[in-house]
């Protein structure tokens, strides 16, 4: 068993509950021992640093200082969320480089009776630890139900591979760690050209047209390669691509259906674990058809509690110029 200090982050407590559930379910099988950082706080995502400078680094500094107090046999802090990973790594790296910032952060931490010496802990992402510490072979050895015939798009998102100031990854634009891991599970991994493109981040809350276009590019890319399913390792990416996929389809009048699940869920399935223990079934885009293709049957969906009645579009009565219609579209036939 290899032991790591664990920073779960806010998303894993709620929107990405299936991520942590599946991680905890596979943890023993892959020999991962986790010790949660006590009373950790939010990393600030991409928002705190847009408002405050010293406070944004002090916010993360508190987590690093708390982690440093728990250092016992391991110096490695593991985060599963990309934004948490980047914020922790970036704060430690900037505190190492910028003595003035390090001093300001420590002056702030002092107000709470804490101190942090930059470099005390090493910050790493879950995928990095699984692939580079525990090893692909250890994963392969646990596979009892190979995902043969399942075409998977490996989606890394932006913030784990970039900016990568500590050189943790093989490539900042086309990393291969997740590809190799998924191949070890027996899956057919597509050479996904959009693997580190942006999912839209917080844009769904700020400018939807802009967010939907970024979501469309990724979903379209995966569909072009006939991927059955897309695998992600970030709560924000999963939320944007899954929960907003139908909105995106409505916006562009498309009909994509690409289920988005966490790589830990797919690992659990290949290890023969039950879908329920892996948090499967909480997606907006149903992964059942894709998984049943390779003989993995998930329990039936709960009855839909919300039915949305689509209101027919009201026709304008003005005698303006006719709008262009796509051939074969509904309105053109009327």
């Amino acid at each position, binding site marked *: 068993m290899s032991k790591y200090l664990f920073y779960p982050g*806010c998303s894993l*407590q*709620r*929107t990405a*509950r299936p991520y942590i559930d599946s991680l905890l379910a596979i943890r023993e099988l892959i020999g991962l021992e986790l010790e949660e950082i006590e*009373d*950790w*706080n*939010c990393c*600030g*995502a*991409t*928002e*705190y*640093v*847009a*408002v*405050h*400078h*010293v*406070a944004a*680094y*002090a*916010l993360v*500094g*508190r987590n690093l200082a708390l982690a440093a107090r728990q250092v016992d046999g391991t110096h490695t802090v593991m985060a599963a969320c990309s934004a948490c990973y980047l914020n922790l790594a970036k704060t430690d790296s*900037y505190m190492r*480089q*910028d003595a003035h*910032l390090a001093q300001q*952060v420590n*002056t*702030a*931490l002092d*107000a*709470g009776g*804490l101190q942090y010496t930059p470099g005390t802990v090493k910050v790493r992402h879950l995928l990095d630890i699984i692939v580079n510490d525990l090893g692909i072979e250890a994963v392969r050895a646990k596979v009892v139900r190979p995902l043969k015939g399942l075409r998977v798009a490996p989606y890394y998102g*932006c*913030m784990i591979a*970039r*900016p990568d100031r500590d050189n943790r990854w093989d490539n900042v*634009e086309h990393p291969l760690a997740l590809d190799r891991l998924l191949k070890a599970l027996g899956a057919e991994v597509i050479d996904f050209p959009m693997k580190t*493109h*942006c999912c839209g*981040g*917080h844009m769904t*809350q*700020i*400018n939807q047209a*802009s967010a939907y276009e*970024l979501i469309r590019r990724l979903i379209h890319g995966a569909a072009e390669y006939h991927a059955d399913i897309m695998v992600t390792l970030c709560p924000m990416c999963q939320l944007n691509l899954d*929960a*907003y996929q139908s*909105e995106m389809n409505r916006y562009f009048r498309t009909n994509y259906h690409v289920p988005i699940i966490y790589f830990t869920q797919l690992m659990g399935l290949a290890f023969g674990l039950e879908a329920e223990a892996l948090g499967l079934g*909480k*997606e*907006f885009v149903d992964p059942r058809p894709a998984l049943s293709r390779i003989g993995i049957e998930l329990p039936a969906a709960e009855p839909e*509690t*919300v039915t*949305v009645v689509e209101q027919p579009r009201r026709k304008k009565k003005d005698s303006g110029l006719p709008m262009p219609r796509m051939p074969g579209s509904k309105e053109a036939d009327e």
Partner: protein
Amino acid sequence: MTEQQNLPAYQAASLPPFIPGSFLKEVMDATPGDSRLQMCIQCGTCGGSCPSAADMDHTPRQIFAMIRADMREAVLRSNTPWYCVSCYYCTVRCPQEVHITDVMYTLKRMAIREKLYDDSTAPDFSQTFIGYIENFGRSFEFGLATRHNLRHRPLQLPSMVPFGLGMLTKGRMDLTPQRIENIEQLQAILNRAIELEAT
């Protein structure tokens, strides 16, 4: 500059001189580490790599030229930093290794401090988000989404009901925020940090 002394002579000699009190110097000083912003060669790799460039008033390259030209207000009023999605493509592709994403964060902070923005959606989102952190120590999606959308997109709220109910019934969202145990400690740290920013 101390960085200039650490560089090989041929590079140090080619560094553009800082004009004291220039906007360029101000932006660089407000960015952690060495942002290398004065090294920009106006190649445009940043804008070409940016997934949001089409929505921006100015591409990152243009913004950097404007910073050098001391066009303070035009830079801070630009929507460019608010469309940055923090994907870091520009940062890793920049041949001069300018920390572009971090410079965008600096511009956001300056624009918020001076209230120089035409569309308040993104600045308000950031401020609502951090308000929950300051009160609870954790983010709170349900509160954030409801509050932000009530303020900025009230007419679209009905269309978001299926999303919200879906999140709640799937157990992916809570109606109440979680609070960390030692919130007083966090608040003391953040208050001290914000005092330091003011000096």
